[in-house]
């Protein structure tokens, strides 16, 4: 009995105390997915201990297919054996489950605003950036024109704000976060200027966001990303 007491005392004093003792949290993602990274940020923000499982999407694990039968995609969060899929659904789940360092404010108007911009990113920015990355000629021109229109709204939204969430990071910051890393990578790989000096607030946000303690040092290895996206770019632009 005394040995057990000493063991428990040792464990208590020496193990990292996360905010989710006794709860099992697993995150299925890939090393590069920005959607998985959003979830990493949310978990870090809340001090949640989790196990990270990096999938190879060309050879998906049985567990992933079991946890996300509808889409068969990452990220999937598994909390005490319960799977949650779709990154924005996961972010709201994390906020609903662990109350410290909220991602969404209590104010319904502000919550609606954050959700609106998160949706804007998913429905407008992401398809447009994909079109910019994968097309040429007239299609590229059209994609760029749409991108410019979209960015105007984003720039406007940042007026008078440090972050999309105001003074603190919010849902929209997490969802827009990919910009702070991938724009630079896409520009390097494509030679295109995608976010230029017409968007000073957005450029500042990208820098401020990257420097936040939760975000800093979470980006995937730069060289590895360049290699990956260069190969992808060349696939869509074979002549170059």
């Amino acid at each position, binding site marked *: 009995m005394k040995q057990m007491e000493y063991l428990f005392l040792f464990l208590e004093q020496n193990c990292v105390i996360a905010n989710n003792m006794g709860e099992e949290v697993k995150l299925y993602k890939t090393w590069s997915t920005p959607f998985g990274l959003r979830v990493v940020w949310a978990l870090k923000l809340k001090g949640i201990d989790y196990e990270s499982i990096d999938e190879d999407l060309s050879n998906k694990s049985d567990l992933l297919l079991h946890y996300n039968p*509808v889409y068969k995609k990452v990220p999937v969060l598994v909390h005490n054996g319960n799977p949650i899929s*779709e990154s924005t*659904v996961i972010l709201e789940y994390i906020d609903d489950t662990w109350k410290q360092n909220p991602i969404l404010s209590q*104010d319904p108007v502000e919550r*609606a605003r954050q959700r609106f911009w998160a949706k804007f990113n998913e429905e407008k920015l992401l398809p447009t950036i994909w079109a910019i990355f994968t097309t040429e000629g007239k299609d590229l021109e059209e994609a760029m024109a749409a991108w410019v229109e979209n960015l105007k709204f984003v720039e406007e939204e940042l007026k008078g704000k440090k972050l999309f969430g105001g003074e603190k990071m919010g849902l929209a910051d997490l969802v827009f976060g990919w910009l702070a890393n991938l724009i630079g990578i896409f520009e390097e790989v494509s030679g295109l200027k995608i976010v230029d000096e017409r968007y000073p607030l957005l450029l500042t946000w990208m820098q401020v966001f990257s420097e936040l303690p939760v975000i800093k040092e979470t980006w995937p290895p730069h060289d590895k990303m360049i290699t990956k996206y260069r190969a992808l770019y060349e696939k869509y632009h074979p002549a170059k």
Partner: protein
Amino acid sequence: MASSDGEVKVLGTWSSPFVMRARIALNLKSVNHEFLQERLWEGKSQLLLQSNPVHKKVPVLIHGHHTISESLIIVQYIDEVWSSAPSILPSQPLERATARFWAAYLDEKWFPSMRGIGMAEGEDARRAAVGQVEEGLVLLEEAFGECSKGRPFFGGDRIGYLDIAFGCFLGWLRVTEKMSGIRLLNETKTPQLLKWAHGFCSDDAVKDVMPETEKLAEFAKMIMSRVKGAATGTGKS
């Protein structure tokens, strides 16, 4: 902090399932509101362009001096502002996530696939489109079993978030069934959803805002002929 004070208006059209979501949510909470009908074929109103400058789309909820866009965001806003009335979203995080997951699925996959039936050209394309919709309905039938746990709605004993997200499409689903001659909801593959649909449409919060199938079918024919007319007129395919 937003209070429930302030005039409430919904900017929308009678035929839009997305607009219906906002109206059902307000009805569930017994919130008095004005329904401002847009006549989109005459061009978008100044009010719409001002209150939703980013998307210029309906529905828009106008609450005092706040404007909220995007139907599911509006429903959550309504639930959060009028928090003392019956809850629309479940209270448990996992159930909330499940409801949100399926609502997103409906908007991103299922409803576009249903619209695909009307737009399909040729028998093969139509059959493929119908197959997709039916596959989706089988998933939703299973989801219903898990969410409802033997009770009449996805939300349990009362209409909830996922009921609203899905139920708003029933008018257009019936029009599609009528025009294609295929019973998408049926006793064989989707017996629970068939029963649920009837219960949803009869609910007090829904019955006055769900358009009649005949009226919607006429409207659909009119839109399709306009779309086809515009396509041939400009020479676009």
